């Protein structure tokens, strides 16, 4: 009988420890600003089932460096999380999808954009009230702040983050850095209404050379992210990030040898420069774009 009681006691403490254990994700910036920029994409996490191949791929293509963290989840369990740096700056993270214990971790591989919000509880309410879905409730991730995983009203998943010490300051993306983020919904106007309500940003459009309109959301006059009606037939609504490169053709040429795939070949952009859509070794899609910064243009 005493043995039973002791066993129950041990189990209780194990369960309590499990329930209270939170991942301690490091801050997204080395230099906290104390300022919040709601609606800004402040971070990018790569979920990949091929972490080593992904490190080589992105390291060779864009010059990224990976710092393994080995986050402690309690009871001797660690999760392989890596910080990604480019030219010394923190730009994202990478998590091993094999640890999610799903039947096919390859299907989970994706880039997750992380959007800044001033109040994560209110933001989660807005997502749900606007037809979106909560995948993971707001979770305290220590130095990083509070993070929630959601889907917009058309099924594109992304994360919300209320940083603990403020968001990274706006700065111009160097070659190899994150240049732009874009959501690819089935209905741009619906998506614009969803994200305008969520972020408080202003919706705007820019006429394209072909007579169409490019939709984007901005804070004051600073563009934060774009909305483009599903440009790829085979893809359901999703977020896609753009990496700044100097010569898209030269980068695309190396994709296959590094284990990735070119999904859409290099093409001329209406607004100038070139772009291509590629996938890393895990299948996670990302775009590359050349970008000539105008002297008077504002930093992203």
């Amino acid at each position, binding site marked *: 009988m005493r043995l*039973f009681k002791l066993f*129950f006691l041990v*189990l209780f403490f*194990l*369960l309590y420890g*499990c329930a209270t*254990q*939170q991942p301690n994700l490091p801050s997204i910036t080395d230099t906290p600003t104390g300022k919040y920029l709601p609606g800004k994409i402040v971070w990018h*996490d790569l*979920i990949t089932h091929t972490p080593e191949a992904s490190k080589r791929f992105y390291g060779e293509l864009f010059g990224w460096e990976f710092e393994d963290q080995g986050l402690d*989840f*309690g009871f001797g*369990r660690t999760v392989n999380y890596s910080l990604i740096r480019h030219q010394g700056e923190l730009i994202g993270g990478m*998590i091993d999808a094999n*640890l*999610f*214990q799903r039947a096919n971790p*390859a*299907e*989970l*591989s*994706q880039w997750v954009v992380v959007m800044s919000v001033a109040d994560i509880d209110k933001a989660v309410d807005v997502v749900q009230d606007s037809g979106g879905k909560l*995948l*993971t409730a707001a*979770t305290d991730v220590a130095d990083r702040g509070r993070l929630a*995983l959601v*889907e917009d009203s058309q099924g*594109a*998943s992304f994360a919300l983050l209320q940083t603990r010490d403020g968001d990274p300051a706006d700065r111009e993306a160097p070659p190899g850095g994150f*240049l*732009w983020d874009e959501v690819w919904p089935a209905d741009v106007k619906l998506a614009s209404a969803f994200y305008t309500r969520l972020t408080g940003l202003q919706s705007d459009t*820019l006429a394209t050379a*072909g007579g169409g309109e*490019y939709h984007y959301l901005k804070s004051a006059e600073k*563009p934060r992210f*774009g909305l*483009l009606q*599903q*440009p*790829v*037939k*085979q*893809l*359901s609504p*999703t977020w896609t990030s*753009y990496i700044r490169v100097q010569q898209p053709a030269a980068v695309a040429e190396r994709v296959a040898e590094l284990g990735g*795939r070119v*999904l*859409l070949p290099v*093409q001329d*952009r*209406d607004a100038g420069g070139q*772009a*291509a*859509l590629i996938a890393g070794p895990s*299948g996670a*899609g990302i*775009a590359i774009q050349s970008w000539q910064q105008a002297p008077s*243009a*504002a930093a992203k």
Partner: protein
Amino acid sequence: MFQLWFKRLAQVALMLVMISGLYACNNPQVYGSIGVSSYGKMGNSGRVSGSISIGGRIR
């Protein structure tokens, strides 16, 4: 006798419930509930069709 067996059964059942609760500890939080990605749904079916000529940073 019946009460004793019932009590033991209840204890074992409770124990099993608590042990199964420990399974949740294996799930890394936050991204543990991520769904299949759009790119994952697409599979490895070669090149896709479409254009991003009007996408990307514009200003």
